[in-house]
């Protein structure tokens, strides 16, 4: 419906500023879509978690970046790569956008609480996205997470 076909009241209505959803909704919906279509993604997540558990989540060989939060903090997004990057290692960033694919919230060393915003979650409410679900590598590589308690967060990114 273009503006020209609207009467003045309709145009006035269209000019009103709507309440927006939180960025977390984007993540939840896109996660729901990607999660079903991407068997590859699930395999990757499972592999990442398995290695993470084996290495106590923070080992130098961990396949997913790990950070300890006492919120709010800015987390660097260390790599946008189809192959999961080691924590802190810089990986060449492909052109285009990157999207945060998975965030795992871990209560204690080596113990998974569950998948954030997924189905079997405990204490997921302790972590919420505040902003930047889509990261443009050229314009800052940060993912802002907010949690009321100190927590360990395992997260990963891949090309969009």
């Amino acid at each position, binding site marked *: *419906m273009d503006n020209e076909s609207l*009467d003045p*009241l*309709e145009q*006035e*209505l*269209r000019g*009103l*500023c*709507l*309440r*927006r*959803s*939180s960025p*977390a*909704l*984007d993540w*939840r*919906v*896109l996660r*729901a*879509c*990607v*999660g*079903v*279509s991407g068997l590859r993604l699930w395999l990757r997540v499972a592999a990442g978690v398995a290695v993470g558990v084996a290495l106590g989540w923070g080992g130098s060989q961990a396949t997913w970046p790990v950070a300890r939060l006492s919120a709010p903090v800015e987390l660097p997004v260390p790599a946008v790569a189809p192959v999961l990057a080691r924590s802190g290692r810089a990986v060449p960033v492909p052109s285009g956008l990157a999207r945060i694919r998975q965030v795992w919230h871990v209560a204690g060393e080596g113990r998974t609480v569950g998948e954030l915003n997924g189905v079997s979650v405990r204490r997921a409410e302790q972590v919420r996205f505040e902003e930047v679900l889509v990261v443009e590598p050229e314009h800052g590589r940060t993912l802002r997470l907010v949690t009321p308690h100190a927590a360990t967060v395992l997260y990963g990114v891949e090309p969009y």
Partner: protein
Amino acid sequence: MDPRSLEAIYRRHQQGLYSLALAITRQPEAAEDAVHEAFARLCALGASTQVDETVYVFASVRNAAVDHVRQRGDSAITPASIFNGHAPDPRDTELAAERERLLRRAVDELPEEQREAVVLRIYAGLTFEQMAQALGVPLPTVAARYRRALEKLKDRLQTEL
């Protein structure tokens, strides 16, 4: 439905979908849950649909929002506006600002069916035919709801300003 199609529809219509859910639930959190649940269900089903996919998604979000309201039952809530908090533009005259405030309140206070029609038409940009399909009512019905909504808004602006 193909998850990629769903993702594309979400990206194109996320504001309209959320506003529709909010217009029904009147609670921001419940509206987000409704949108999420609808997409999760559609992705899980994976079934193709004979109708316009966009319409199908709007209908699904609406159903999820209605379910939320049913589950909530009679518990009292403070209805949230579908609009953002008012931030007056310093260039606006006092009358213009008052008119805007009144218009927002008037939309929020429309009967649910009329509010839905305004959201779907103005903010989601659906055609009357798509609206009729999404709401499961005949086209003349939805057109009449929309027309009555506009008349009511005009009346309120005239009488209260």
